[in-house]
C-alpha cells in the first residue's frame, strides 16, 4: 500500500521534460526523500584524511541521519549512526576529534569500541537476567548499511540492501580518479575548514545549477562582467599579467558558444559533468615545478592525459559536486524542503607545489563563500525561485532545453554543453531511487 502510494506520488511529479514544483516545496516529498531516496543511494560522508589516525572521528550526515566516521583501532574506517543505543544521546557533537580507543557516552557512560561494539556498562549487574543481550541496545552503535572508501573518499549507503558501489557510480568515477591522479603520489588531503553557506531553498536547485551553463553570463554579469570592464579600463603595461581574480572570475562571462562547445556528459544513475572538451578551468596559468613532478611520477604521455582533462563540474547524484582541476568538493546537505547547507571543501594534491592549494583556496573564497560576489547572485536566484514557486496556476518547472523524445539515461551520452539533459538524468535517478533503485 505504502509502496503504491509512493509510486503514485513519484509518477505524479516527474514528467520527461518538466517536474512539478512539489519536488522543491512539499514537506511530504522532502520526508519521502529522507526516508527513501537518500538511504537507497551512495552518499558522500567524508574524506579519509579527516580521520587519519586510530580514534579520529568526524560527525556527518546523510539526509537527516546523524552519523560519525571513525578510524578503528585496526586502521579501517567505519561509518556508524551517531546515537547511543541506550537513550539516544549523540555520542559526539564536535565536527572532528579523537576519542582514543573507545567512545564513552556522556549521559550514562556506556562505552563502545571504535567499531561500535558495546564495551562496558557501569553497574552492569542491574541488567542481569533482564534479557539485555537480546536487545538492539546490546549491539552497540549501529553501523550504516554499507560503506566504501574510494581512493580516500568515503561513501555510504544507509539501506542494508541495495545497489553496489561500483554499479551505482560506474564510469562516473573517472572524475574522482582524475582529481586524485593530479597528485603526483595519488593522494589528496583535506585542507582547513569548509565554507558553510546557508541557502533558503531546496537542495536540488543547487545540484541542478552545477550543470546549468546558461546562467553564468546572466546571473554573474555583475561580478564577472564588471571584473572584465575594470581590467580593460585600467592603466597598465600592454603585457601586464592578469590578476588571479581575472583568471578565476572572468571566464564566467564567456559567451553561450563557449558553453555550448564545452559539452556535457551524462552517466547512468544521475551522474554527469560539464566541460567534456574544455572548460572555464582550461586556461589557468602553469604552476612552476608541477608539470615536472607529474611527468616524473607518471611519464609524459600519462601526465599530459591527466592534466588535459579540464572537467568543470561533476555531479555525483544525489548531492555532491567535485571540480577535478581545482580539487574541490561541494556537499549540498538537505535540512528541509526550503533549507540547504552547502559545505565547500578543498584538498591538497600531495607531492604538488603549494601554489596549487593557494589557487584552490582562492577559488573557494571568490566563488563559494557567503561573502562571495558570485555566490550572492546565485543565492538570490535560488531564493527568488523558492518563493516564486509558490505561485499557483503555474505548477511545473521546465527542464526541456535540447530535450529529445525517448531519452535513454541508462546509456552514457555526450551532448551540446547547454543541454538540460543532466537535470533530466538526475530526475530519472530520483524517480528510481525513491522507490528502491529498481530500473
Amino acid at each position: 500500500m505504502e509502496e503504491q502510494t509512493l509510486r503514485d506520488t513519484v509518477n505524479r511529479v516527474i514528467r520527461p521534460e518538466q517536474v512539478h514544483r512539489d519536488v522543491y516545496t512539499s514537506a511530504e516529498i522532502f520526508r519521502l526523500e529522507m526516508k527513501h531516496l537518500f538511504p537507497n543511494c551512495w552518499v558522500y560522508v567524508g574524506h579519509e584524511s579527516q580521520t587519519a589516525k586510530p580514534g579520529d572521528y568526524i560527525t556527518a550526515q546523510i539526509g537527516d541521519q546523524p552519523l560519525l566516521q571513525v578510524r578503528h583501532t585496526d586502521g579501517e574506517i567505519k561509518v556508524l549512526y551517531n546515537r547511543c543505543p541506550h537513550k539516544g544521546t549523540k555520542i559526539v557533537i564536535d565536527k572532528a576529534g579523537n576519542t582514543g580507543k573507545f567512545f564513552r557516552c556522556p549521559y550514562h557512560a556506556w562505552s563502545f569500541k571504535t567499531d561500535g561494539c558495546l564495551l562496558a556498562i557501569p553497574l552492569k549487574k542491574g541488567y542481569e537476567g533482564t534479557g539485555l543481550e537480546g536487545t538492539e541496545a546490546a549491539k552497540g552503535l549501529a553501523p550504516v548499511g554499507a560503506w566504501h572508501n574510494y581512493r580516500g573518499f568515503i561513501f555510504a549507503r544507509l539501506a542494508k540492501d541495495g545497489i553496489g558501489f561500483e554499479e551505482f557510480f560506474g564510469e562516473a568515477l573517472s572524475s574522482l580518479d582524475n582529481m586524485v591522479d593530479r597528485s603526483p603520489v595519488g593522494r589528496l588531503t583535506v585542507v582547513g575548514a569548509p565554507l558553510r553557506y546557508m541557502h533558503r531553498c531546496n537542495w536540488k536547485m543547487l545540484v541542478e545549477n552545477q550543470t546549468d551553463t546558461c546562467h553564468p553570463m546572466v546571473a554573474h554579469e555583475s561580478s564577472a562582467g564588471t571584473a572584465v570592464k575594470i581590467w580593460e579600463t585600467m592603466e597598465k603595461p600592454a603585457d601586464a599579467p592578469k590578476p588571479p581574480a581575472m583568471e578565476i572570475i572572468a571566464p564566467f562571462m564567456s559567451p553561450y558558444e563557449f558553453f555550448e562547445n564545452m559539452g556535457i556528459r551524462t552517466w547512468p544513475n544521475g551522474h554527469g559533468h560539464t566541460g567534456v572538451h574544455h572548460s572555464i578551468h582550461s586556461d589557468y596559468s602553469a604552476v612552476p615545478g608541477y608539470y615536472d613532478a607529474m611527468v616524473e611520477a607518471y611519464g609524459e604521455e600519462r601526465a599530459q592525459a591527466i592534466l588535459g582533462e579540464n572537467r568543470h563540474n561533476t555531479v555525483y547524484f544525489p548531492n555532491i559536486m567535485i571540480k577535478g582541476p581545482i580539487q574541490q568538493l561541494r556537499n549540498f546537505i538537505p535540512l528541509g524542503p526550503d533549507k540547504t547547507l552547502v559545505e565547500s571543501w578543498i584538498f591538497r594534491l600531495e607531492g604538488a607545489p603549494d601554489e596549487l592549494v593557494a589557487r584552490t583556496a582562492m577559488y573557494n573564497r571568490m566563488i563559494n563563500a557567503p561573502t562571495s560576489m558570485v555566490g550572492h547572485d546565485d543565492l538570490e536566484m535560488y531564493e527568488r525561485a523558492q518563493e516564486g514557486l509558490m505561485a499557483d496556476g503555474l505548477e511545473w518547472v521546465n527542464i526541456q532545453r535540447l530535450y529529445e523524445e525517448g531519452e535513454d539515461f541508462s546509456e552514457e551520452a555526450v551532448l551540446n554543453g547547454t543541454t538540460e539533459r543532466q537535470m533530466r538524468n538526475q530526475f530519472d535517478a530520483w524517480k528510481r531511487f525513491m522507490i528502491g533503485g529498481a530500473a
Partner: protein
Amino acid sequence: MSAERFIDFVYDEAWMLDQGRFAEWIELWEPDAVYWMPLNWNQQDPINETSLLYEDNFMLRLRVERLQGARTFSQKPKSRCHHVLNRPRVEELREDGAKIVTQCHYVETRLDEQMLLALTIRHDLKVVDGQIRIAGKRVDILNCDAAFGNIQLLP
C-alpha cells in the same frame, strides 16, 4: 601623529561604510593593502587555506563597483549596514602609523532580514603625505565557523 587621530580615523571609516560612501572608502586604501576575513578562529594562514575574504585592491574595487551595478541582482533592493564600535585600542603607535584593534557589533539588513555579527577589527594604518591610509585590515567574526546566508556589504 597622535593616537586620537588614528582612533578618529577608525570611527570615520565605519561611518563612511554605514553611509554607503564606498567610492570614497576605497580611496582610503593603500594600493598593496589586503582586506582579510578569516574563516577559522585564530586562523594564521590566509593564503593556503580557505578564508571568507582575502582581497587585494582589484577585488575591493570590483566589490565596490558591483554594488552600484545595474544588473547586480542581489542588491536589488540594496542592503544597508550599521557598525557600533567599542572605543578602539591602540596596540602600537609610531610616528608614521599605528595598529588598532576594535570590538564592533555589525548589523546588515536587506528586505525583511537583519543579521548581527560580533567583530574584532584590526587596522594596520599608515601615514602617507600627512593622510592616514589603510595598509591592511583583518576582520574576525566571533562565529566565523557558523553557516551564514549572504553577507553582502563590508563588515
